[in-house]
């Protein structure tokens, strides 16, 4: 029994030990497997998993750096960054969000509608996410919030920065910024990777065209978050790179002055340096308050702006299209002279109208001007004279000259909203309208009616290029700090330094690399002289608005662009412009250069439905010209500073 028992134990032990050995070998293999896996994860792939862990752990919120500033020529900030006061709420840190909102209603100006909107917004967010209750508190509200802060658990007063515009005079030239929209992201490539919630981006004007550079490089706040997305702590901050600051050629005080001069009327003013193309002033009226858009314009104000008859949101200086009216007569004359179609001595008898192929073409003066030459025709703006000149010239030659002087094309590169306008010719009509050109249309075109469409800026450029003696200039609104002195400016400087040295036109062009727009400069001078007569001689269209002081004396050309042609009955009854409905009144133009003795600036004034150029536009131009010339020395001093020794 005992021996059986022990042999039983021995045989059992044998089996058990043998099988245990096998099992131990399997264990060793498994152990090696676990070690191998550990080594593979923690040694071979640790970099990969570390980056995955960091990706889990960190969330970055991009933040917008301060936006670039827009300055005027003298360094005054037109569009700047201002300190703003905001109120943020984190629902998690408040005992009762609804009560907090009710309490806030007594402290800050917040409408019940906004509160219900905010409640909805809070509900859709995670309870630890920040919600902006108000992004632009007044200082009084901000102080009150701080005073009652102990009662407002969960509310956070925050000081931030936002765009601020000094005044509305440059609203169109500068444009405005507003919160980024899904459409912006779709349309603009540089915004697609920006990823900053609610960032203000440029929507119009320079704010829009220089947006990418002015935004700067975004910074970020890096947070550590837990598995549920709750922010645990801030681990790193990068403030980003401030956007680029731009200096414009605008003069803020002239901007303000021009805007004021246009107060109460709808229109535009452009002022340009005739030698280097600097745009000194560009305003459109009525304007809007660009600050309204920074924190989101309210629907009432938006409705008022968009439904206004005078289209305050439109930058009329570059996007408003109007027939040039009689201002084009300067170009008709130049074109005819340059092409040797007419002699300056040509006399035409104006009896108030001419008949051509059974159609009657009226002069604005019913009684007629009698026998007129070119100088008188421009001075008195005789339509019949220019019907005759245009008839001889033909539309294609007129159109070529008009294009040469800057009409029918974009003048500046800085405005996405800029319009091209129309300079019609036979080919254009065939292409766009599909019909042949009629001679009658040539006659209308000769006095700036018909298909012609121009912007105030284009007419300013035209006037500037006539005023500077017929040389091409490139208008600009941004100062290039590294630029060389322009070729025309070089010549002017040379002329000022050596007053006795009279140079022939060919030498001027050759020595200073000028780009003439003429064949014979005499033709340009003739028109300039006629414009002088129009403003400064009795019987001139703008004689009543003249400035007698030699320092300010200007030469200009009026223009009225017809909206609706008068019927014969109206013409017989001598109906006045003021007697017809506002929207049917003519647009009033005035283009001019000053000072007459030594022209430096060109200006164009447009008054929508102003009636006639001499009564509506010229008086405004007179005021602005005076202001511009008064500031000429300050501007020259600033210019000399920029170019330093070069002058």
């Amino acid at each position, binding site marked *: 029994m005992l021996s059986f028992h022990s042999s*039983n*134990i021995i*045989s*059992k*032990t044998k*089996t*058990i*030990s043998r*099988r*245990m050995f096998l*099992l*131990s070998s399997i*264990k060793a293999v*498994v*152990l090696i*497997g*676990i*070690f191998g*896996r*550990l*080594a593979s*994860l*923690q*040694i071979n*792939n*640790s970099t*990969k*998993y*570390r980056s*995955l*862990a*960091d990706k*889990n*752990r960190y969330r970055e919120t991009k933040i917008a750096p301060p936006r670039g500033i827009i300055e005027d020529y003298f360094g005054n900030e037109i569009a700047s960054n201002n300190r703003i006061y905001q109120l943020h709420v984190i629902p998690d840190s408040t005992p009762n969000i609804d009560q907090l909102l009710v309490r806030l209603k007594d402290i800050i100006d917040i409408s019940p509608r906004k509160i219900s909107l905010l409640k909805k917004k809070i509900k859709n967010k995670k309870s630890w996410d920040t919600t902006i209750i108000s992004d632009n508190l007044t200082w009084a509200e901000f102080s009150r919030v701080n005073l009652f802060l102990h009662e407002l658990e969960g509310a956070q007063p925050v000081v931030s920065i936002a765009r601020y515009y000094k005044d509305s005079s440059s609203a169109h030239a500068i444009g405005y910024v507003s919160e980024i929209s899904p459409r912006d992201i779709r349309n603009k490539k540089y915004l697609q990777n920006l990823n900053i919630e609610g960032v203000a981006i440029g929507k119009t004007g320079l704010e829009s065209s220089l947006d990418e550079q002015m935004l700067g490089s975004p910074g970020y706040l890096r947070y*550590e*978050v*837990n*598995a*549920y997305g709750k922010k*645990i702590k801030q681990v790193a901050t990068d403030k980003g790179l401030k956007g680029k600051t731009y200096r414009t050629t605008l003069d803020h005080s002239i901007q303000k002055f021009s805007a004021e001069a246009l107060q109460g009327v709808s229109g535009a003013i452009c002022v340009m340096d005739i030698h280097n193309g600097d745009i000194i002033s560009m305003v459109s009226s009525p304007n809007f308050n660009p600050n309204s858009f920074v924190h989101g314009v309210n629907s009432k104000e938006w409705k008022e702006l968009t439904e206004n008859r005078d289209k305050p949101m439109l930058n009329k200086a570059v996007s408003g299209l109007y027939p040039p009216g009689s201002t084009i007569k300067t170009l008709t004359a130049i074109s005819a002279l340059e092409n040797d179609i007419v002699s300056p001595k040509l006399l035409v008898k104006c009896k108030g109208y001419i008949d051509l192929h059974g159609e009657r073409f009226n002069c604005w003066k019913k009684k007629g001007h009698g026998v007129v030459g070119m100088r008188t025709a421009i001075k008195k703006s005789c339509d019949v004279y220019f019907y005759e000149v245009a008839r001889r010239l033909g539309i294609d030659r007129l159109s070529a000259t008009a294009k040469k002087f800057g009409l029918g094309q974009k003048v500046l590169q800085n405005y996405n909203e800029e319009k091209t306008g129309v300079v019609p010719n036979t080919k254009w009509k065939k292409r766009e309208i599909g019909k042949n050109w009629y001679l009658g249309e040539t006659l209308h075109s000769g006095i700036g009616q018909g298909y012609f469409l121009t912007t105030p800026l284009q007419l300013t450029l035209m006037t500037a290029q006539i005023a500077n003696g017929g040389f091409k200039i490139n208008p600009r609104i941004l100062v290039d700090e590294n630029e060389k002195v322009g070729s025309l400016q070089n010549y002017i400087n040379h002329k000022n330094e050596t007053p006795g040295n009279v140079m022939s036109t060919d030498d001027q062009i050759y020595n200073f690399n000028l780009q003439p727009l003429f064949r014979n400069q005499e033709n340009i001078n003739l028109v300039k002289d006629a414009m002088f007569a129009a403003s400064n001689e009795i019987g001139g269209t703008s004689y009543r608005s003249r400035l007698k002081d030699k320092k300010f004396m200007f030469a200009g050309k009026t223009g009225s662009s017809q909206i609706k042609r008068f019927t014969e009955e109206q013409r017989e009854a001598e109906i006045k412009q003021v007697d017809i409905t506002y929207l049917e009144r003519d647009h009033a133009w005035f283009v001019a250069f000053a000072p007459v003795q030594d022209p430096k600036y060109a200006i164009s004034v447009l008054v929508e439905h102003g009636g006639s150029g001499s009564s509506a536009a010229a008086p405004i131009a007179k005021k602005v010209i005076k202001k511009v010339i008064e500031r000429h020395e300050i501007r020259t001093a600033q210019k000399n500073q920029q170019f330093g020794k070069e002058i």
Partner: protein
Amino acid sequence: MLHTRSSLHTPFAIRDKFFHLDFTLLFSILLLGIISIFAQYSSSGGQFDYHSKSHAVRFCVFFFFFLVVSFVNIRFWNDYSLLIFVLLILLLVLVKFFGVQSQGSRRWINLFVFNLQPSELMKIGIILFLSNYYHKISSGDVNKFRYLLYPVIALLVPFMLVLTQPDLGTAILILVSGMVITWLSGVRWKLFAYLSLLFIISAPVAISFLKPYQKSRILTFLNPDTDPLGAGYQIIQSKIAIGSGGLFGKGFLNGSQAYLNFLPEKHTDFIFTLYSEEFGFLGSALIVFLYFLITFRIIIIGNMTRSIFGKLYCYGFSTAFFIYVAVNMSMVLGMLPIVGAPLPILSYGGSSMLAMMFGLGIVMSCNVYKNNAIG
């Protein structure tokens, strides 16, 4: 035989018993226990109040219990294994009716002081019972049908009881532990081959009985990227945590994955992940080595034990212990599906700790009474 008889019946003094303890095993357990308290401290986000405190208390209490079990004669454990097994079966049945339900499964009995999980204890109970059974029957009877019936019933009853709680992980561990003993005792290879065949054939049927979450766990294990935010999330986050630990780890209390709650169940099933993230490959290697040492020491003790019961128990327990460790680690390392298997000693959980200390205590008892024959 006389002198053995005298040594058999002369009770040891506590002092003598103490010197018969296996100190390698004892210190390995102690070291693991201390590490586990630190790991729990870290899992509570650097606070002693939550898991770490009760874990430390449990470890101390159960370590004392372990010593007590060690000093009880191995014959006692042999004699009472059937009773312990039957008691545990009764407890499992009790759970079915009076158990505490949590997260869709009924696993615990409310003992007022703490909730006892009998299935954890059953892991030891099955080893005890089968060691005792094969100790009793002669080697020639092992493969006889009549003698195979008992073990199969003894395996299937607790397996089914635990599986239907439901607790797939523990049920499988109980089954595997029991089968290891059966196999060690000399049951024919062929039988296991037939069983595996049967298992493979019945697998599709069995799968249809699985709870949806169990099915999805198996599926996501096979391809964790298909559902990165669902069941696969745990595997992915665990791998990220371990991998990002690198060679030296992120430092104590600096495991971002654990601290920021990316890691699920970090104080129970995924405690190794937390530890591994903070202490890196070197720290993890130490833990793996400690577990290996414990397994190895238990086998040595089994080799030195004279009784078949002791041998079978030690070998069986060492294998089961190894399987718990291997399953848990493979799970957190992404080599096995998430089945819910705690890591012995390190994981938070009273019943698991109690079971492990009880099991290790009996091993130690084998060592203290290694020269004793059992009738």
